[in-house]
Every structure is written in C-alpha cells, then in structure tokens.
C-alpha cells in the first residue's frame, strides 16, 4: 500500500497557558482532570491514525469531544501542542507560513458547519475566491467557478448573495468553494448538521455521488452516528479528546470496543449497516439453492430475496467465485436476534 495521505502520530492539543510545559512533564500520559485543575483544557488526547488515498474517514463524537479540534490541528488552523502530523509525507508542523499557504491553495479544501460564506460576495464570487487568492485572473477564475456552480447544481443562482439562499443551497456553495482549487484532501466539519433532515439526506446522497466521481481523501466530522455509518469507509469515535475506537462501520457495530461506543450501536438497525460478508458462513454444498448474492450487498437490500428461499444461498465475490453461504435463519437472527447470535 502506498504512503498514507494523512498520518497522525500521538497528536495532542491542550488549551491553556502552560499547556506545552505540562504536556512535556506528563510523559505522554495526559489525564484531563489533572490538567483541568491546573487551568488547561485537553482538546485532543493522543490521537494516532492514518488516512490513505481516496479513503473517507469519519470522525464521530458528541459536542466537546474534540473532533473539530482534531480537524483544525490537521488543517493547522490551530497548532497541535504535541505529536506529529504528516500530509503526504510532509511534516505539517514544520512548514513555514508560506509553504502552509501553498499547501492550502493547492491541496486542501474545507467545508464549514455554518457555511462561512463571505457575505459581500455572490455565489460565483465566493466560489472563485480561493482561485483569485491564488492569483488566477478574474476571467479564468469566474469561468472555473461557473463549472463548480454547475457541479453542485446551482446554475441560475450564480449572482445571488448568500443571504438570498436556503441553508442547503448555501452549503452547496461552501462545497463548491472547497472544491474549486481541486484539492486532494477534503475536510468537512459537520457540513450537514445545520440543515433540515430531508435536505440533509439529499445532501448526503449528493455528497456520495460527488465522492464517487472525485475520489478525494476525506476527513468528515459529524455528531450524527447514522450519518457516519452511511458515509464512512472507516469511523473514528471520539470522547473527551480520546479516539475510543477506529474501525469500519461494520466492525464498530459488531464489536464495539468500549461501553461508550456500544451505546451508539445499540439502536442501529444492523441490516442497514452490515453487508453479507460480515455475517456469512463457510461455503456449503448441501441444500443449496439457485440464488447467488454478492458479498458486498447490504443485508437490507437482499434480505427479502434470501428470506423467500427455503434453501441455502451462495455468496459470491466480484469475480463470481463462491466465497461463502448464508441461510434465511441467519438473516432473521441478524435482524431480530441479540448480539450473541451473529
């Protein structure tokens, strides 16, 4: 596997006057309560992970869990107190201001919860802004921005001001702006949290469609566990600045690492998250029916087909090779049974 695009090694972010000194004295064992007594607040506590090219890592946590702080450390909107962050092998914390600006102008894009559009610029000017900041002339930047307007489906509204748009439309502008410089790395800080549920779902689908097409490396922050499950390749669950568990959605649902994570997974409808591969048995030959299902199918989508069979069903991979089997009883157990049944 090639080099990870984002790599964090023991990243700490501690707010307070003596943060740096206290961190050095603690030898890597940071206890939030001790720090708080000394007037420091721990934002991110020993975060280590990698994100590889084209992968979407969703960081999930409730408010105050440090997820946004972690994102700001990686985009270097704030400087991490300790640890190392590598962006495509470059040590982010060692970058000079000018190199950092270059990095942001060419490699990074970010979407914000409250949209953070410039109120004095129209839709197309907002989108063209990162290009103009780079020094691209007005004509080129505007025409490029118009492509972006079309990409997010806002054609006809390019001359509107942000205040004249709905929340969903504003966030489309935010997304278009963050994509205007064609970044490799895409940061999204709770982009859909401020939107109505219906619009949110629509935007999530739109977002998945975009990602299908663009294949960016993504860090996506959310406080909505369902959203995390729907979008993520991998999920990091944070609490009090610590990453409690970092794994694929299925693994988190099937094997929550801590009590805290389990609370989130309890209410999750498994058939919507798990794929056949997660629950299938070894290949068998007896009582095998005609039906074949792909191992990558989400259970919900094929449950009805399998349940109407009286026989075992073969599970195949993308090359049509049989890799396992599944029977209707297993499906019923998965959906309605307790954890021990899987």
């Amino acid at each position, binding site marked *: 596997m090639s080099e990870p695009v984002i790599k964090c090694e023991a990243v700490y972010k501690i707010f307070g006057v003596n943060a740096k000194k206290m961190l050095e004295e603690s030898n890597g064992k940071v206890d939030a309560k001790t720090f708080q007594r000394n007037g420091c607040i721990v934002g991110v506590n020993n975060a280590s992970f990698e994100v590889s090219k084209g992968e979407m890592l969703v960081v999930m946590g409730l408010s105050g869990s440090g997820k946004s702080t972690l994102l700001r450390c990686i985009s270097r909107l704030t400087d991490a107190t300790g640890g190392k962050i590598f962006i495509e092998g470059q040590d982010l914390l060692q970058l000079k201001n000018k190199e950092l600006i270059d990095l*942001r102008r060419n490699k990074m894009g970010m979407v914000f*919860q409250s949209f953070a559009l410039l*109120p004095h610029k129209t839709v197309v000017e907002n989108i063209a*802004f990162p290009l103009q900041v780079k020094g691209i002339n*007005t004509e080129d930047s505007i025409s490029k921005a118009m492509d972006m307007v079309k990409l997010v489906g806002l054609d006809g509204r390019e001359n509107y001001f942000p205040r004249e748009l709905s929340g969903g439309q504003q966030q489309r502008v935010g997304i278009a702006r963050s994509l205007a410089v064609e970044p490799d790395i895409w940061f999204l800080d709770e982009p859909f949290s401020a939107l109505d549920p219906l619009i949110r779902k629509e935007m999530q689908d739109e977002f998945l469609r975009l990602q299908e097409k663009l294949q960016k490396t993504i860090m996506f922050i959310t406080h909505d566990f369902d959203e995390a499950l729907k979008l993520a390749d991998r999920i990091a669950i944070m609490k009090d600045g610590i990453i409690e568990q970092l794994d694929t959605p299925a693994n988190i649902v099937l094997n929550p690492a801590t009590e805290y994570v389990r609370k989130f997974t309890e209410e999750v409808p498994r058939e919507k998250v798990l794929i056949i591969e997660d629950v299938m048995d070894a290949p068998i030959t007896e009582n095998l029916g005609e039906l074949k299902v792909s191992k990558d199918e989400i259970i919900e989508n094929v449950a009805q087909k399998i349940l109407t069979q009286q026989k075992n069903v073969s599970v195949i991979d993308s090359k049509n090779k049989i890799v396992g089997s599944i029977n209707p009883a297993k499906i019923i157990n998965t959906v309605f049974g307790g954890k021990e049944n899987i």
Partner: protein
Amino acid sequence: MEFLKKYPKLFQWLFLLIVFFALCFAIEVPETYKFIRGQAEFVKDPNQSAFIFLGKEWRYYAFDVFWRLPPLLGWLPIWINDSLFFLMNDWMPMEFWNEDTQEFKTRPLVLQVTRNLTAFMTFLIELIREILLGGLETIVAFTSWDWIDANPWAELPGLPWTIVAVGSAILAYKLSGKGLALFAGLAMFYISIFGQWKPSMQTLSFILVAAPLSFIFGLSLGIAAFKSKRVEKALYPILLVMQTMPQYAVLVPALVLFGVGDHAAVIITMIVAVPPMILLTLLGLRAVPSEVIEAGRMSGCNNWQLMFKVLIPTARRDILIGVNQVIMVCFSMAVISAFIGAKGLGFNLLLALNQLNIGLALEAGLCISLIAILLDKMSLAWANKQVDYFGNLTFFQKNKNALLFGVTVIIGIMLAYFGSIYFKGGYNYFFEVPHNKGISTADFWNKGVDWIFDTFFVYIKAFNTWLIQDVLQPMRALYLRMPAVATLVLVVGAGYIIGGVRSALVVGGLTLFIAFSPWWDRALVTTYMATFGVIVSCIIGFTVGTLCFQNKHSTNFMLGICDIFQTFPSFVYLIPVMMLFGITDTSVLIAVIVYATIPATRYTIEGLRSVPPSLHDAATMSGVTKFQRLFKIEFPLAFPHMMLGLNQTIVFALFMVIIGAFIGTEDLGQYILKALSDKKGAGIGLTLGICVAFIGLIFDNLIRTWVDQRKKHLGID
C-alpha cells in the same frame, strides 16, 4: 424584612438619596458664595487663600471644603500651556534645510514637524480646491513664484459648475442609480444658482481631504488595535475620552500646534473623526465569525488577503457606520473650524449667524446639509456596489459613463466659452455664479422671521419667560445648591450600587477631577442644561419611537428621517431656533432637544425591533392586549438597548450645550469659546474639554455597566 431582602437595590437607592439630601440640608450655603465668574483667572481676591506647593504659590477660595472643593487643579491648564510652548519653541532644536533661504536653520523638532505636516495638508487641499475652482498655488508648489511671473499662462483653470454638477450626477448614477443621480444634479444646481458655489467647493475640497484621511487612519489604527492587544490598551482611554470630548475643545491646542487655516482644520477634524472610526472598525472586525476567518485561511489567504478580502468586507456593516460617522464629523467640523480660519460655507454660516441674518445662514446651512447627505449616500452606494461578470458588454456600453463625462466636459467648456462672450460685465454665469449674483431667498426668510416675531412676539415672549423663570432658573438654582460633597456622595454611591467598587472608583475619580478644577460651578450649569435637554429629548424620543414602531412604514420613515437629520452639521440646528427665540437660553435648549431627540428616537425603534419575533408570538398566544405586550414584553426587553440610546442622547446633548455657547450661555462652553481667542488659552481649552468629556464619561460608565448587567440578566446580547 422580607421586603428588604426581596428588593435590596431599592433600599440601597433610598439610603443613598437620604444621605444625599441630609448632606444638602446639613451643609449651609456660605454667605460669601455667589455664582463666581472668572474663577479661572485667579485674580487677587480677599476671599482667596494661598499656599506654597512645588515652589509656587497656589491660590484658592477659602470657603468651606464641604461646600466646594478647592481648585487644586488650577495649575493644570498653565502646566499644559507651558509644556505646549516648550515643545513648540525649545524642545530638541535641530538643523533643517530651508528651501527659501537656501541654508540650514535651527528649529525645534516639533515646530518643524508640524509645519511640514501643515504644508502637506495645505498642498492637498489647494490641489483639490484648484481643480474645482482654479488657482495658482498648486503650480507654485512644484515650481516657484518667479516661474509663475515668467509664465503668466500657468494657472489651473478650474471646472465650470456645469461640469461638476453633471459629473457628480453621472458618478451618482454609476454608483447607485437614477434617484441619487437626480438628487446630486439638483443639489449642485441649487448650490450654483444660489451663488454658494465658491464657498461650497471650498468646503467640499476640505471634506475630500479630511474624510478619506480620517477613514484611512481610523481603519489602519483599528486594524492595529485588532491585531495587537497592546495597541488596543494604549488607544482605549484616548478613544473613550475623545468620544465625549466636545469638538470645540480640541480647536484650542491645535491652534497652538498647527496655526490658523484650512490645514489646521483638517488635522483637528482628523483628531475628532478618527476615534469613532477606530472603535467601529475594531467592533466590526471582532464580530467576524471565526469560521469565516478559518474559511479564508483554508482558501489559502496570506495575512494581507485575509485582512482586506475577508475580514474587512465581512465587517463592512460596522465599518460603513464608521464612514458615516467620519462624514458627519467632517461636516460638523467644517463649520466649527471656521472659528480657526477655515474657508467655505462654515465661515459664511457663522458670519450670517453673527449678524443675525437668519436667511443667509439658512441658505448656507442647507448647502452644507445637501453636500453632507450626498456624500453620505454616495459612499454607502460605493461600498455596496456589485460587479456584473456575465454581461457581454461592448466597449461603448462598458465605458458609457466615462464617455458621457467626456462629452459633458466638452459641452461644459464650450458653454463656458460662449458664456464668456455672451455675458457682459465680467460675470460668466456658465462658469461660476458669483456669490452676490445668485438668487437669494435670504430676504424672504428674514421677513418671515420678522413676521413671526411681530405676530407671535407676545406668545413667544410669554413662553420664553415662563420657561426661564419657572423651569430653568429654579432648576439651575437647585443644581448650584448641591454641596460638592453631596454630589460626590451621590455619584460614587450610584456607581457602587450599579457596578460595585470598581465603577464607584472610576466615577468618583472623574467627579473629583471636575471638583478640583476651577470650574465646578460652570460644570454644574452645563450638567443642568444637558439634563434638562436629555429629559425632554427622551420623553419625546421614546414616545415618538414607540408610536412609530406600531407600523412598519412609519418605522422605516422615522429611521430615514433620523438618518437625514443626523447628517446635518450640529451648527445648523441653531439656525431655526434663533429664528424663533432669538439669543436666549431657550434657543440653546431647544436646539439641544431637537439634536438629542435623534438618537433617543432611533435607539427606541431599534431596541423594540431587536425583541425576537418568537417572543412576540408567544406573548400574543398568551392572549395579551397590545398595551400589555408593549409594557410587559417589549419594553423590558428593549430597555437595555434604549438605555444605550440614552447614553448617545447625553453625549449629543452635551455637545450641543457646548456649541450653544456661541449664542451665549454661562457654562463651560463659554470659557472654551473664550479660550479660542486667547493666546494662552490652549491649556484652559483642553482642561475644559476634559471636564466636559468627564461629565459624559460619568454617565457613560454608569449606563453601560447597568446595561451590561441587565443584558446578562436577561440573557440577550
């Protein structure tokens, strides 16, 4: 006891008032006391005592210290004066190259710096003035008088008024649209045919230098304060004092430093106009959401781009209010600085007021107000301008305004040329309508004034006498009857009850400064006039504001009226009141009331508007009547905002009271006016200004502290 626990503040207030009145009755008026005129002059007087301090003899009145504190700060104006003169004449003499005599000359540093500064300002003003009106000075600045003598053709010709009028209409059209263009054209036309062209252009050239410079300085200092805590801390006290410092008071020291004339006026205007600009810039930049800043960073802005492309445009609303303030102050100063020899409409206005020629004053005042409104609207439109990227325009369409202006210039010049042939007698009406040849309605107005006086004399006189004898005199006597110690106790007590020890110390210190200055009595008179004005203004403002708020159209209408009235220079308010009431305290007070009613009304409307609509709905659904809603929901919630309006009302009232000295009042303002014509008046003028500023600051501190607590209590921001 239950009651006492429930309303502890109420009892604190009651206790304070009891102490206050007890002190008032306990301390008798000393027999020797009369309202002393000329305390500041320190004449030998049998009532004076003297003591030696720092090797100098200090005199003070030997009366009861409970009644009036001794004027211990009497040395301050003298000290300020001496230091100023020392700075100007003796400090750091240096060798400077003198262009005229072609040799090195020894001159004190400050003198040299201020002279260079004034030379630069003069150059800027003359440049614009001569583009508009024609003249030699600019060319002289680049060459010499000898060269001009040798080349008599070298003179800036000046623009015919037709070109300026149409040009400003085109500019207004480009910035805003037909409405403003029409207004611009008509305003310029009016100014021209009424023969006010020359003074108007002089004033305009003054403004066009002062306003942009104030804007640039204010913006840069605001940015500096935003970036560095240290700069902010250093600037803050100055900003605070300057906000309540009457503009008059700054004139005097500036007179010493920069001399007399337009250049000094520009510098003073900057001193007065920059502080509000700084404050509003800072306020605006602070209010930019952090996510917008982060978005700017992530778009790859460097610091410069972040400031000028993200922060400042996002903070545009507050910065624009700052620009509006700058323009307001500039026009105010355009009149006031006529006292120190600035040319233009202000000078004409003062002259006319002095001669009691109300008609002429009205015309000049109208011209100033028209230009003020025009510039205000144009700057606003400029900031809100939008670029169209998609219109596929031809060269002609893109540059139609420039082309139109070119055509205007040609036609204007041709007209002026024909005019010079057509009009006999040396006046070319197509170039400039001379001052005495324009249409004048002055006679009409003067006759009107006379008519009003003849017809309503009895009533006006009766009203005047009643107001002065039955309201003002007793009120004034009451204020002067307060022993200094009682006043001090009242102010410090109020500070303590409202804001705790800190507030008590601050207001106590400010009051002590005034009490130790030689002008306590005068300060009381100023306060009484301001109080009277503020009370009436607030009653009118709150009532009008509340009534207008009941209807959306009347709300907008009233805010528009406030906007326009705010743009009038403060001196203009004196014209109509002098028309009606002549030279009396009544005139000043009515001007104060009219002027101070503007912020009272505006803040009432804005306060009521800031009540969230959801609360409005909630109240309606609880079945309240209109009156219940007003008194139980809207007033309590809008009250903090309305109190900020009270704050502004006080500042406005104080300013107008001081300006009222021009008509003749017996307060601090009179001395400031006096100091203007005094060679050694700088110290006195500045100290008096500080006294007035401190009166404002005492109220400011109390009100602001209260508002902050109230807002926290109500959970609104």
